């Protein structure tokens, strides 16, 4: 089930909220768990058993690991859990890619290809696998005790607002909330959760879908017909699409959590106003960055390695892994490596120059990021390079694609909302909308805006029959 569907907006959400409001406190977590299982099973009936089965296995491995005395035994159980989780992730997500590349090599040297039935990717596997890893690692490290109740652990993993596309919530950030979220369930938080949800839905349906349709159309233009200006327009449109789509989804997830008293971490902080790529990664998919730092970069040595070359390698490697996490295609790997290279260059010398430029260096960051998105969108190296060649050499446009008034309007709105927080005034306004408690007057304003957003987004959703999120397939 996706949030931007009529079945979620008009069936699941209101029925769930009604039941959740009326049910006794004692049964609220059970209701959330049941709703989450239904939510996932609705969209992926075959994979609900995979996620339920793996969470059951993990729970008992971690419990056993926690009570084990010997270090060797604890390490063995840690490795077992990591192997199962990463093994399943590799199997479902990367085996197709792995076999394709092996077959490519085998064909090249004249050998017969491996016969392989392509696997379907379970929805959200990348997200919930990473959360499972935080559970086992946090318990291993002694940061937090394991959950006593199996169903509480299921709740942590399968919680429907964040199950499919994050935010990735580390176990130690969430453990206490399983029990205390009910205490935070105030009318204030519920309302702000509703507003946040509809702001996110508006970002996705009203902005991301429109600029995304243009991006899809432009990227589908044959290379010999594509002009330079149109190629740039396509890349910029995609940059806005992926931002508003993903940040919109995160807003919806955070909003839904707020309605139940959960406080999820922020996942985006105006990334296109970043003054460097280093800064960009503090603002884009923040929870993934936090995960990578805590569970990959620091174990590799982090900043405390002996040699600078080792630090730069670790940094680059972490971003290579980030790229691969996003998808099983060379385009994602190159995208990750591309960002890693810029991070290293900035560490070497570029950051000093950018600091002297000040806020205006957001232009540099935006251009670098837009170029990187070409690899992400196209997923294949050769085609990406062809597209980039069109962007950087003059080609006249002879395609049939024509921008519409709607496209220009939404592109302008997207650009405004992406860059407006360069102004400190807007940053203050944003804090009032997203983070601070509301006066009653502000509630009336946001209530009205949210109702209008509900009507508009429901209208646009009913005009289409299926409206998946861009990060859905991860």
């Amino acid at each position, binding site marked *: 089930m996706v949030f931007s569907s*009529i079945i979620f*907006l008009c069936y699941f959400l*209101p029925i769930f909220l009604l039941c959740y409001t009326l049910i006794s406190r004692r049964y609220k977590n059970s209701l959330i768990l049941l709703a989450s299982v239904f939510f996932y099973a609705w969209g992926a*009936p075959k994979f609900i058993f995979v996620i339920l089965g793996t969470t059951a296995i993990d729970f008992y491995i971690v419990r056993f690991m926690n009570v084990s005395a010997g270090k060797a035994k604890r390490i063995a159980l840690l490795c077992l859990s990591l192997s199962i989780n990463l093994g399943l992730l590799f199997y479902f997500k990367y085996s197709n890619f792995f076999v394709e590349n092996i077959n490519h090599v085998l064909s090249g040297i004249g050998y017969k290809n491996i016969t392989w039935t392509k696997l379907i990717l379970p929805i959200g596997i990348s997200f919930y696998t990473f959360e499972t890893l935080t559970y086992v690692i946090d318990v291993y490290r002694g940061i937090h005790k394991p959950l006593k109740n199996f169903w509480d652990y299921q709740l942590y993993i399968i919680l429907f607002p964040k199950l499919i596309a994050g935010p990735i919530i580390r176990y130690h950030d969430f453990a206490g909330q399983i029990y205390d979220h009910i205490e935070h369930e105030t009318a204030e938080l519920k309302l702000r959760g509703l507003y946040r949800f509809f702001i996110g839905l508006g970002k996705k349906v009203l902005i991301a879908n429109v600029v995304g349709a243009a991006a899809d159309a432009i990227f589908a233009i044959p290379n010999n017909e594509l002009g330079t200006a149109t190629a740039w327009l396509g890349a910029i449109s995609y940059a806005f699409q992926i931002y508003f789509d993903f940040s919109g989804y995160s807003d919806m997830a955070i909003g839904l959590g707020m309605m139940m008293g959960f406080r999820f971490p922020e996942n985006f902080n105006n990334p296109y106003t970043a003054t460097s790529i280093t800064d960009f990664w503090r603002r884009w998919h923040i929870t993934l960055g936090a995960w990578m730092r805590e569970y990959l970069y620091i174990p590799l040595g982090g900043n405390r390695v002996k040699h600078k070359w080792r630090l730069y390698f670790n940094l680059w490697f972490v971003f290579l892994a980030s790229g691969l996490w996003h998808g099983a295609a060379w385009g994602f790997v190159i995208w990750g490596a591309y960002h890693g290279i810029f991070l290293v260059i900035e560490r070497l010398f570029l950051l000093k120059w950018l600091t002297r430029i000040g806020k205006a260096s957001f232009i540099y960051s935006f251009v670098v990021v837009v170029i990187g998105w070409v690899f992400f969108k196209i997923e294949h190296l050769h085609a990406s390079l062809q597209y980039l060649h069109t962007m950087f050499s003059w080609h006249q446009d002879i395609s049939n694609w*024509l921008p519409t008034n709607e496209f220009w*309007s939404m592109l302008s709105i997207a650009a405004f909302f992406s860059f407006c927080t360069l102004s400190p005034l807007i940053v203050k306004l944003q804090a009032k909308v997203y983070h601070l408690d509301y006066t009653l007057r502000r*509630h009336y304003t946001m209530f009205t805006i949210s109702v209008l957003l509900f009507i508009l987004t*429901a*209208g646009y959703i009913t005009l289409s029959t299926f409206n998946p999120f861009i990060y859905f397939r991860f």
Partner: protein
Amino acid sequence: MKARKILFFIFLGLLLLPLLNQHLKFIDSGEIYGIARTPNTTFSWAKWWDGSYREEKERYINDSIGFRQDFVRITNQVDFSLFGKINAGWIKRTPDNYLYYDGYLRAQCGADYAGDGYPYEILEKLKFLQDTFQKQGKLLVVIYAPSKANYFSDNLPPLPECKTQGKTNLQNYIRIGDSLGINQIDLNSWYLTFRNKKTDHLIFSKQGIHWTLYGALFATDSIIRYTENKMHIRMPHPQWSEIEYSYTARRTDDDAGKMLNLLIPIKEKFSYPAIHYCDDTTLTKPKTIYIGDSFIWTLIFDGILNHANTNGQYWYYFKDVFLTNYDEGPVAQIKDYKWPDEVKKADCIYIMHTPPNVTSLGNGFIEQAYAYYHPQ
């Protein structure tokens, strides 16, 4: 805090309203034009397992949720008013809200051109039938109904396929038809001469795909005169003196406009002549069969053709058979109908198509009639 609780419950109530209205139907939001109802689905474990139940159920809920019609109209109005965008893929518009079916635009610029030699085979068969029927005292005529895109060719919305003007199927069919001596009426050219005369009345409405009743009356008169000339008979002509003006469209005058499903329909003044017919019994009313596309409907509404013909039949796309009481729906499907017998009884057979449909001239009638009258 109490105010916040109330606001939350109001919002929750708003979220529940569509679901409640879908099942309890306490508010009727009317119809959405041009969209077929999606049937509900039944649950089975097998369908749930393979994902088809989810797809079908979500589609059904999406299409039947309460207030869907209102959601659609609001969204369409926002798109139309703010961006000039139409959420009906095949309708294109000009800045002054002239609506076109994109097939007519493609036909007008020649984007659907079938090729120079394409019509020969069908038109040669048509010529054979024309000659065969003439020996039997029957008249076979091809009528090229007018295209709105042709009539307003100086004010058309842009179409990516129409960056340049090419040869058109209509011109090619008329040219070859002329060379073969086929009975044909080109209403497109005739309407253009009519356009030069200034009139307050609409031949084509802004928001209709088809000609207006006013436009169709002039075509009827032209068809009757042609028939009289060819068959040396005198037939009753529709007459009108008074014209009623209305901002409410009748019949197909706003068929494209309706498809936009707007909150605020496009405003337009329509002209409706009060038609009266001559009761002169000395005039001849031939038995006729009309075969063709939906432009014939306007000639059938209000009994226009019936007053000039006897036992008129309309074979819609040579698929469904309608008689004079067309409101009752088709009386038969052509495949089950003894149409050769009806052809034998008829005095006049008219094949009428608009430019996008000329490449399927007769919709199979010419080929099947040729096979009937020219067995190999």
